């Protein structure tokens, strides 16, 4: 199945019963899949009149304690930022899938990794973070979407899946996981306060100092996430001196470059961050104790490059190769860049 369908199916199996979406290329099949599949699963599908409406439907359902999601692509994700900021401020769980297309502005419908900054730095206004995963296969897109709902509930925080137009449309075999029967209890949810004290969900704190305290509370949560939820993969890490660093679709292409390079006798490896926030700084820094050179490859002008620089500092030589605006690098192209450095 396609990535659009796989992420939809993963959500349903993770117990998500509310999907609010709005069409945008290249994620239209997501909305279409959910329009019949959600109903079949006994859930609720609503096609909203705009992306803003969809994310605020998510806001409402999440506050009521539901497992809920939305999906879109870059320009649509921009429109959702206010809602994502509200979700983060109110500590509400939700899963948001971004099938990244090239920008800025209208850009193009071609795949890109140009939303890395937006995804990993909060995205909307205010001091907040969203857990962000960058899957690189349809199976991983399925698995991470399935996991995302648990993490969203566990930390009461929005989780972003940052895929792209390739992963949205490409078809691969997917091994499904079991449909979740038991979902976590949410005593904080707004479910009617008969027989209990009323719950409050809010992000407005006007009393001096109270908002600062709230922000410190969020910061402590983010720190916990940074300690526990880092995910990455290394490929040929034992004997490599030269490492490619790439995530998502780009990491698959980089893997191809590693395989080709090794055939030519090069000691080439790959470091692939899976969680983009929290970023695997420590693991990468450790790798830099052995690796001499690192080449960051992205489908953008160098966004994750900043995180790699933070991680490695001056421990090793770091350089960048990127293709913005919908350009997709080939393994051959990457190898050529490797040989230059």
């Amino acid at each position, binding site marked *: 199945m396609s990535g659009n369908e796989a992420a939809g199916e993963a959500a349903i199996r993770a117990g998500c019963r509310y999907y609010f979406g*709005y*069409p*945008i*290329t290249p994620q*239209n099949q997501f*909305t*279409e899949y959910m*329009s*019949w599949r959600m*109903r079949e699963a006994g859930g609720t*599908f609503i*096609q909203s*009149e*705009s*992306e803003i409406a969809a994310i605020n439907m998510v806001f409402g359902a999440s506050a009521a304690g539901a497992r809920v999601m939305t999906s879109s692509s870059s*320009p649509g994700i921009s429109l959702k930022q206010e809602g994502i900021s509200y979700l983060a401020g109110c500590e509400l769980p939700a899963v948001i899938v971004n099938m990244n297309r090239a920008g800025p502005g*209208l850009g193009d419908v071609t795949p890109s990794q140009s939303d890395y900054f937006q995804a990993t730095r909060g995205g909307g206004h205010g001091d907040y973070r969203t857990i962000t995963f960058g899957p690189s296969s349809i199976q991983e897109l399925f698995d991470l979407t399935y996991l995302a709902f648990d993490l969203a509930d566990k930390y009461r925080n929005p989780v972003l899946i940052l895929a792209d137009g390739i992963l949205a449309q490409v078809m691969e075999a997917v091994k499904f996981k079991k449909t979740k029967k038991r979902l976590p209890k949410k005593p904080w949810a707004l479910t009617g306060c008969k027989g209990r004290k009323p719950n409050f969900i809010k992000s407005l704190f006007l009393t001096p100092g109270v908002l600062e305290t709230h922000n410190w509370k969020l910061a402590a949560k983010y720190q916990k996430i940074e300690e526990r939820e880092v995910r990455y993969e290394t490929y040929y890490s034992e004997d490599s001196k030269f490492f490619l660093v790439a995530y998502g679709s780009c990491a698959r292409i980089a893997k191809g470059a590693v395989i080709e390079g090794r055939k030519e006798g090069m000691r080439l490896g790959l470091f692939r961050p899976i969680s983009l926030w929290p970023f695997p700084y420590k693991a990468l820094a450790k790798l830099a104790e052995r690796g001499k050179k690192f080449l960051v490859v992205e489908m953008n002008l160098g966004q994750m490059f900043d995180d790699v620089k933070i991680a490695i500092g001056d421990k090793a030589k770091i350089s960048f190769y990127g293709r913005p605006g919908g350009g997709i690098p080939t393994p051959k192209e990457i190898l050529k860049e490797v040989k230059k450095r």
Partner: protein
Amino acid sequence: MANLKELSERKELLVGGHRLCPGCAAGIIARQVLLAAKEPVVVVTSTGCLEVATTIFPYSAWKVPWFHNAFENAASTISGIEAAYRSLKRKGKIDKEIRFIAFGGDGGTYDIGLQALSGAVERGHRFLYICYNNQAYMNTGIQRSSATPKGASTTTAPAGTVIPGKIQFRKDLTRIMVAHQIPYAATATAGKWNDLITKVEKALATDGPSFMDILSSCRLGWGHPPEQTLTIGRLAADTCFWPLYEVVAGEYHLTYKPKKKRPVTEWLKTQARFKHLFKPENKGLIDTIQNYVDEQWQKLLKLCGEE
């Protein structure tokens, strides 16, 4: 109104070579709207088939100053352009009479762009907003919109064994515009060029905002042979599925009254999106649609003083 001979002598402002589908009504509508303009025009088009297919860079089918913005922004963008023009005119830096036309599909107009359109009309910018209404989000793959009629099958309101296509009736946007006390609002269809062009002329002559909702068949999304575009457009008026009228300063006028009102099934059966309605189990739904059309038509006749 300009006759056919005069129109044929006017300069084409939307030229061939664009990549709209064969039989797409949107191109026909845009061309006729521009032909009706006597003054120079500035055009804003929101995202949609019309924009995507006519402006594949570095090519453009538009022979007018043309601007694009995302789905929800056509009315806001043209507000800004018109405000700048008025300011330049007031300062004496420009003396030319220029008209401003915004084109949006039903997605960009009925749904995500409604807020911007409402704001622009309330503020009173002098511009014509054309909704080329193909009754679904055709550009992204035929998803339902609030302009999609009840019973039509779309990719997000698919006709299945349990639910026979879209459940809700469509929104009446012209009436919403009338509620803004807009000086001129009208409906039109691609099949009636003389009615359409007369209305555009009136709209552009209006000193203030004007709005036209133009039924625009999509051969792919509606499912009909490309050569039937105009026939289907006329049939919509003849069955009163899409009545042709205008509202001038709050007064309703019928601009086309079919000699014989034809049953709505004649319109429905021309399009694959309604195919499932002709299954025996959906007979009741066809009756509901016919009743709805009749009811709306009667209300309109009353508003137009035609009873």
